[in-house]
C-alpha cells in the first residue's frame, strides 16, 4: 500500500514538472547563444536622438564590426542591436560606458538612471567622457588590433586598482553616489580621440549631471593628489626643471566656523625623480630652497584650481562634507554652495622628500 502511495506522489510530482514543459525559463543565457557586450558608446544624434554604438562580436577573435544606431531611448537601442546582429546582445557584462562630451554637457541623469535600474548592469561599470569621434577611431583600430575593447577595459581596470595615480577612473556607483549626495559633485575622466590615438586628457567636473569644465595636465595632477588617488607617480614641474615622483599625499581640510575660510594642508611624501636645473641639490641649503620653490609653486597652482572650482560652484573635492559634525544639524546644500563661492582659501604644502642617492654632483 505504502509503495503505491509513494508511487502516486512521485507520479504527481513528475507530471507537475513535465506538464508545463521542463524548463521554467524564458531567458536564454547560454554563453554560446549570446554576445555579452563590453561597452556602449553614446553620442548625440540628430534631432534629440542619441547615437549608440558597440563592437560585435565581443570577446571573440573574429573580424569585428561596429554597430551604430540612432534611437530615442537607451534600452530601445539595446533592443534594436539584437535585431541587427545574429546573436542576442546582453548587457550583463557591460564594462564601459563612453559618453560623448557634447552629450555630457547637456546632462546625463536620464542615462544614469536607466543604467541604475537594470540589475544586470554592474555597478562597477566605468564611465568615460570622450572627445572626438570615437566610433571612427574604433572602426579603424579594431582592424589593426585584436580585442581592442578588452584591452581598453584592462587599461581602465589597471589604473583603478590600487590607485595607480595617473588617471581619474570612476565607476557607475561612485558617480551615482556623488551625484545624489549633497556636498559633492561627480567627476569623470576625459579621453580624447585624435586620429589613431586614444589619450587620457584630464578630469571633467560636473555640476549636478552636466559637464561644465575639464581640467588638464598640471591641474589634473593636483586634483589626483588632493582627492582622487592621493598618489602620483610622476609630477613634472617644467618651470623649475624638476620632476617629483612617487608622491603620496595626506590632505587635511579645515573649515572655520562661519564658513569664510578654508585651510588645506597637504603633506607630500615622495622623492625627486629628475632635476635639470642649476642648483646643487646635494647641498642641503640649496635643496631646501628647491623644496620651498616647489611648495610655493604647488600652493599657487592648487589655489588656482580651487578658485576655479569656486567660480564654477562645484565641489568635487567634497570640502562641504567637512561642515558635518556628529552633534549638529547639517546645513543645506544651497547654503553651502553660496558660502563656497565666497570662501577664502589658504593652501599649505609640506614636502617630505627622501634624500638623493646614487648620484654625484656635476659641478
Amino acid at each position, binding site marked *: 500500500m505504502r*509503495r503505491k502511495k509513494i508511487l502516486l506522489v512521485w507520479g504527481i510530482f513528475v507530471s507537475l514538472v513535465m506538464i508545463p514543459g*521542463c*524548463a*521554467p525559463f524564458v531567458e536564454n*543565457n*547560454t*554563453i*554560446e547563444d*549570446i554576445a*555579452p557586450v*563590453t561597452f556602449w558608446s553614446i553620442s548625440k544624434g540628430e534631432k534629440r536622438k542619441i547615437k549608440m554604438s558597440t563592437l560585435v562580436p565581443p*570577446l*571573440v*577573435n573574429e573580424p569585428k564590426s561596429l554597430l551604430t544606431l540612432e534611437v530615442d531611448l537607451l534600452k530601445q537601442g539595446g533592443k534594436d542591436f539584437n535585431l541587427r546582429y545574429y546573436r542576442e546582445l*546582453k548587457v*550583463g*557584462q557591460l*564594462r564601459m560606458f563612453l559618453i560623448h562630451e557634447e552629450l555630457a554637457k547637456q546632462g546625463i541623469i536620464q542615462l544614469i538612471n536607466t543604467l541604475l535600474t537594470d540589475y*544586470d548592469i*554592474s555597478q562597477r561599470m566605468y564611465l568615460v567622457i570622450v572627445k572626438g569621434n570615437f566610433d571612427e577611431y574604433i572602426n579603424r583600430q579594431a582592424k589593426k588590433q585584436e*580585442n581592442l575593447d*578588452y584591452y581598453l*577595459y584592462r587599461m581602465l581596470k589597471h589604473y583603478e586598482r590600487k590607485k595607480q595615480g595617473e588617471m581619474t577612473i570612476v565607476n557607475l556607483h561612485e558617480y551615482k553616489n556623488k551625484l545624489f549626495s549633497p556636498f559633492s559633485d561627480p567627476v569623470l575622466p576625459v579621453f580624447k580621440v585624435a586620429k589613431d590615438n586614444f589619450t587620457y586628457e584630464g578630469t571633467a567636473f560636473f555640476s549636478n549631471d552636466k559637464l561644465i569644465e575639464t581640467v588638464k595636465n598640471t591641474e589634473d595632477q593636483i586634483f589626483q593628489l588632493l582627492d582622487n588617488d592621493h598618489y602620483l607617480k610622476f609630477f613634472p614641474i617644467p618651470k623649475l626643471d624638476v620632476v617629483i615622483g612617487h608622491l603620496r599625499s595626506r590632505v587635511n581640510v579645515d573649515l572655520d566656523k562661519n564658513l569664510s575660510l578654508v585651510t588645506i594642508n597637504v603633506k607630500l611624501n615622495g622623492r625627486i625623480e629628475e632635476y635639470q636645473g642649476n642648483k646643487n641639490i646635494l647641498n642641503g641649503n640649496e635643496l631646501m630652497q628647491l623644496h620651498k620653490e616647489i611648495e610655493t609653486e604647488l600652493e599657487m597652482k592648487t589655489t588656482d584650481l580651487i578658485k576655479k572650482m569656486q567660480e564654477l560652484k562645484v565641489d568635487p573635492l567634497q570640502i562641504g562634507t567637512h561642515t558635518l559634525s556628529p552633534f549638529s544639524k547639517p546645513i543645506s546644500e544651497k547654503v553651502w554652495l553660496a558660502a563656497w563661492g565666497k570662501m577664502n582659501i589658504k593652501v599649505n604644502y609640506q614636502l617630505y622628500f627622501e634624500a638623493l642617492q646614487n648620484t654625484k654632483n656635476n659641478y
Partner: protein
Amino acid sequence: MFWKKGKRIANDSSDTQQPVQRKISLDSLKQVLDNMDDVEIIERTTLNDQKVVLIYLRTLIDQDRLNESIIEPVIQCPHAMIYESIATPKVMKIHLLEEAQKLLLTGAVLLNDCIQEQWLVIPLPNELSRGIETSETETILYGAKDSFTEQLEPNITLIRRRLPITELKTEKYKVGSLSETTIVLMYIDGLTNPEYISIARKKISEINFDLFFDSSQVAAFMEEHHHSIFPQFQQTDRPDVCAYSLGLGKLTILVENTPFVLIAPITFFHLFQSPEDYINRWPVASFLRIIRYLSFFLSVTLIPLYVALTTHHYQMIPLQILFVIVESRSKLPFTPFWEAILMLTILEIIKEASLRMPTKSSQTLGVIGGIVIGQAAVQAGFASKVLIVLVCISTISSFLVPNYLMTKANTLIQFCFLLLSSFFGVFGIAMGAVAILAHLNGLTSLKQPYFSPIAPFYWKDWIDLFIRGPLINMKSRPDHLHPLQKWRYKRRM
C-alpha cells in the same frame, strides 16, 4: 512488499527445518557425506589392535599435521586410551550428528574410537592464507604497513597486538544460512558505550540472509538507511585504524573471508580522516585535511558551477575568464549541460574500465583515455578546453577522499547537482546542497547522528574535525562518541 513476502517464506522454512537431534554413527555420517569427493574415511589399527576410523575433508585440513599429530601417535599408542595419545592442543568429544557435520566443514578430523564407542573431534584446519601485505586501498607513506587478510584469526591477532588489554572483548557470531560466515564483534569493555554494543548485538542477531562474502553485505543488513548513498559503516583493512577507533570508543566488526573490517558508529567526517593525519606534524596534517574537504567540495560543485555559470549566470564570470570561455565555447555543438554529461559519463566509463581491466591492458586504456578525453574531444569540437581542465581537476580531487565508497558517492551527487544547476543555476546548486546536508543531518550510523560533531553540536570535538589539533591537546576522547572513559590520559591519584 515483495521483500516482506520473501522474508516470511524464509521464516517458515526455517521453522519447518528444525533439525531432529540425531546420535552420531558411522553409517549416518556416510550417508550425509555421500557424493562428496574430497571426503576421506580411513581405518587404522593401532598397536593394541584397536580399530580407529578417521573421517575428514581432504581439502580443509592440514595433512602433514594429521600424520604427525594424530595418525602416528594413535597407531603407536602403547596404552588403550586413544584420547590421551593425540598430540594436538584441542580434542573434544561429541555426540550429535549435526555438530559433527558442522565441525567437519570447518576443517576438523573426526575420530571414531570403536572400542570405547566414542567420537572425538580434532580441529586441524588448513591455514590457507596469504601473508600479511601492505594495504592497497588506504596506502600511506609513513606508518604501519600491515593490513588485514581474509583469515579471521590473524586479523584478531593484528588488533590484539596493538591493544594488549583484557578489556578488549571479542564476541563471535555466525551469519548467513549458506555461507555460515563467522563475524566477530570487538569492543573495549568499560570504554565503548554499552548502548552501541547492545544495538550491534541486536542488529547482528536480526540478520537473516544466505550469503555473506564481504563486510559491506553485513553492513547492508545493519544500517538504518538502506537507500542512502553514504556509507554508514567505515570499512578499512588497516589494523592501526581499527585499533585507533576502538580506543576512541567505537566498535569494530570483523568478518571472515574479507580483509575489510567494519567500524561503527562513524560520522561523515571520519570518512575524511586518513591514518597519516596522526603521523604528520599537526599543522601539516590540518592543512592536508582541509585540502581533502576542499577537494570533496570541488569535486562535487566544480562542473555544476561551470554549467550554472555558462547557462544562466554569464554576468558572474570576470571578463578575463569570460574571454577564455567564450573563445573555447563559441563553436561547440552541445549546450554546457550536455557537454558536461557527455564528458563525465565517458570519464566514469574509463574509470570503471580501468578497475576491471587486467593490469597489462590498462596501459592501452590510459593512452586511449588520455587521447579521447584530452585531445580528440577538443579537436573534434565536442568539448571545450575549459571543461576538460575542470573535469580533470574535479576527478583528481574526488580521489583525495580516503574512503573509496565516498568517492563513488560524490560522483552521484555531482550528477544530481549537474541536473539542478542546468535548471536553476547557482540557485539550484544551493538547493541541492540544502537537500544533501539535510539528508546527512538525518542519517544515523548505529543510531548515532551521522553529522556530529556539527549537528548535534559538540564544539570540543572540533579540535579533530576540520583540523587535526596537536595530540597533546586532545586530552579527552570525542564527546560525540559518548565513551565511558572521557580522559585519554591516566589521572594522577
